[in-house]
């Protein structure tokens, strides 16, 4: 490239207590380009972004803006110098309105001047329109879906009119059509000369939109900033994980003769599900496909007894049952649920690895007077933690301090240790890097082969096709049909769309989303 970089960072080091997160990283960003920043969880992507945006001060190394050496004393400083960011974590104030969140830094011109809300809402409009977000700027953010919050956050970053805009996993909770819309905007920004940095685990997206790339591995450059030309997916993966991707292909498994473990017939729930009929056999992986918000997680929680089933029949191992609480589902019927919301519902972040992995089996292990020792729990849990290769300094480590991949492994290990015969797995690979994802897929297959019945909830079509034996399609709190997995992507996605379009609910956007 002949262009001069707008921003360059050289030999950036960042040390945290006990960890050297960045060990001399280089990156250079050009105007009018979308730069992919890749790496596995823990490779240092987020740390680098925080250094570039002034959240962290680098321990060593220099940064150049327009060729001149610079340093950012705070995020405000970085913003003032034209560096904007959409962080991976939510940074919105739920009770504030959309407009207030967008203009948080510039609500009023002076301290005592009242905020002009009408003006504020008017000013917010164009940024929402740019993202084709049809929401009233006066709506409190707490009333929005997760996907829309993400878009508001992007609108906020756009409103700063940054010259360098960093996006840390902006598409994690977006549907395909929302992602497409975002990409259109990013391309427009690029053409206007903005330098964009795009972080994502979804390599398809990276290949679609990015023209340059930097790959990090273990806090160092696995490749310097370079053009995407001539780099294919395999090379990217190789640079990220240091070896090529394990083939995680679907294979046909015959489970037709196996007995049913969980069956639903004509089930309706207080949450609004109607006429749900579904059956999962021993050793079978049944996919439950649908968009976010169509009632998949809600169905899972109803099966687990958290919400009441109001009609129809629920069978466990052929016997009709009424499940009154989650405790009953787990302890009496051997059902388990791996939540999509790992940090909120899956794990107790402030407790130790041992305490988390053992929760479902405490009752089982308890002796006289309900006594329970760490030793006993450890004995049962350790083999599963080892099997899943959970990386932790000790079992006493606080779970909140571990990486996302390790946290997910612990939430899986917890149910393996509990020995459940039916497991609901809800969006297992959200926020998980490629290596861990492939590993999880392998593990779920192995579990099924050993006889566990699995209901897999996912909006990731490749994941569905890699794992499921059959795919049940859900829309608007109903099952719209079932598609056997033949392993042929186009065929299956077409059938799934047909089922969803067979419903009276009009979802034109879904047609776009279905194109792989």
């Amino acid at each position, binding site marked *: 490239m002949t262009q001069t970089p707008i921003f360059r960072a050289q030999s950036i080091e960042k040390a945290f207590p*006990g*960890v050297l997160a960045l060990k001399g990283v280089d990156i250079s960003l050009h105007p009018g380009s979308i730069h992919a920043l890749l790496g596995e969880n823990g490779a240092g992507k987020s740390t680098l972004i925080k250094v570039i945006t002034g959240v962290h001060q680098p321990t060593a190394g220099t940064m150049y803006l327009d060729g001149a050496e610079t340093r950012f004393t705070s995020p405000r400083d970085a913003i003032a110098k034209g560096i904007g960011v959409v962080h991976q974590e939510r940074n919105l104030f739920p009770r504030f309105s959309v407009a207030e969140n967008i203009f948080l830094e510039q609500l009023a011109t002076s301290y005592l001047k009242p905020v002009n809300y009408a003006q504020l809402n008017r000013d917010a409009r164009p940024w929402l329109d740019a993202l084709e977000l049809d929401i009233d700027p006066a709506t409190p953010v707490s009333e929005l879906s997760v996907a829309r919050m993400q878009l508001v956050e992007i609108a906020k970053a756009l409103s700063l009119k940054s010259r360098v805009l960093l996006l840390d996993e902006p598409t994690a909770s977006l549907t395909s059509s929302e992602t497409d819309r975002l990409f259109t905007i990013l391309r427009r920004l690029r053409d206007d000369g903005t330098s964009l940095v795009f972080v994502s685990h979804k390599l398809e997206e990276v290949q679609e939109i990015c023209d340059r790339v930097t790959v990090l591995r273990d806090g160092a450059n*696995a490749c*310097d900033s370079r053009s995407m030309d001539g780099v294919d997916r395999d090379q990217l993966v190789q640079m990220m994980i240091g070896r090529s991707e394990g083939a995680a292909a679907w294979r046909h498994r015959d489970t037709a003769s196996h007995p049913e473990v969980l069956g639903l017939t004509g089930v309706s729930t207080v949450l609004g599900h109607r006429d749900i009929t579904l059956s999962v056999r021993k050793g079978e992986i049944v996919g439950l496909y649908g968009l976010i918000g169509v009632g998949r997680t809600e169905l899972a929680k109803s099966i687990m007894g*958290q919400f009441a089933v109001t009609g129809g029949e629920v069978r466990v191992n052929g016997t009709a049952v009424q499940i009154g609480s989650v405790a009953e589902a787990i302890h009496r019927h051997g059902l388990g649920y791996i939540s999509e919301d790992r940090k909120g519902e899956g794990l*107790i*972040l402030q*407790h130790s690895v041992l305490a988390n992995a053992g929760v479902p089996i405490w009752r089982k292990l308890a002796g006289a007077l*309900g006594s329970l020792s760490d030793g006993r729990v450890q004995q049962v849990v350790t083999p599963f933690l080892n099997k899943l290769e959970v990386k932790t300094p000790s079992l006493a480590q606080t779970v909140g301090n571990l990486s996302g991949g390790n946290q997910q492994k612990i939430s899986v290990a*917890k149910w393996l240790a509990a020995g459940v015969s039916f497991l609901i797995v809800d969006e297992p690979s959200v926020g998980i890097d490629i290596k861990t994802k492939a590993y999880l897929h392998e593990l779920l297959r192995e579990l099924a082969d050993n006889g566990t019945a699995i209901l897999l909830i996912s909006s990731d079509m490749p994941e569905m096709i890699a794992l499921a034996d059959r795919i049940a399609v859900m829309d608007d709190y109903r099952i719209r049909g079932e598609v056997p997995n033949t392993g042929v992507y186009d065929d299956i996605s077409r059938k799934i769309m047909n089922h969803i379009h067979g419903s009276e609910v009009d979802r034109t956007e879904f047609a776009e989303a279905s194109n792989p």
Partner: protein
Amino acid sequence: MSAQDTPSAPSPNSSTGDGRQTWLRFFLSNEFGLILLIAAFIVIFAVSTRGFLSPFNLFSLGRNSAVNIMIGLSMMTVIVTGGLNLAVGAMGVCAAMAFGWLIEVLGLPWPIALLGGLGMGAALGFINGWTVVRTGLHSFIITLATMSIFFGVMIFLTRAESYRAIPDVFSALGKMKIATYLSPLLLVTLACALALTWLYRFTVTGREMLAAGASPAAAELSGIRVGRIIILCHMLSGVLAGMAALMLVARNGAAIPSMAGQLGQDWLLPAFLGPVLGGTLLQGGKVSVLGTVLGAFLVTMLSSGLLMLQIGAFWVQTFLGLMLLIAVLLDKARRSYLTRRNLA
């Protein structure tokens, strides 16, 4: 330059440093800080006052801290759930009055009346817990309301009269001195503290209480009956409040409606001081029984020592308030130090 090799990162916590880290962690713990403070103040008071270490003063110090520690433990069992129990005082007094009524009006033997009193505490705790679980409101609001209700109903039923026909055997417990300076009440409290330590460390129920307090949603989905556990925590709080009040009855030789002040408010400061000084997280999910014991003891000792220095009682209150503030600030500094050193 293309992909370059990087040496793998050394593991931050190698196994060799573990033993030393455990010690370091203990020396940086809240409990150790409290022990140091207690030791320091013992020296100060022993030097600057006359008779601080006399058997009589040690006896009354032990007896007072027995009650204060119990009050702190009562609050602690609810703080574990991320809640508060403002009704500790009211519940305690109600339990004591029930005890007195069972003896004086029904003529029951005192051990049975004792169980009745504790049962009253548990029942009131059940009301608190059940309401909190059912309404989903914060226990702050619920217990603020029930504090008034419990106290009001109790005054109405007893016509604000004391029960004074407490059997001598029972009130003897309050006056008894083991080896001239030790009150049996302190032993009762320490036994309760040991039982609670065992509960939280070595029983399923205790662990479930901590899990439910740290993250109700995650606990529920892991098969813990969170509602039931929270009710249980409130009941435990009621029983411990009852224990504290019954110890006061033993000391006073009567069950008096005003023994914890108007609405039982006199208990609130000791109830919070113990757990907060002791490092029990107000957000719930973490508990330190030893810390609560040490914290409540420190507070009792300070009040007694300051009074012996003949500082006015109002200064003692001011001093205790300051203590609370300083303790919380120190704890915050300690925690951020621990996080920076990667020890927490």
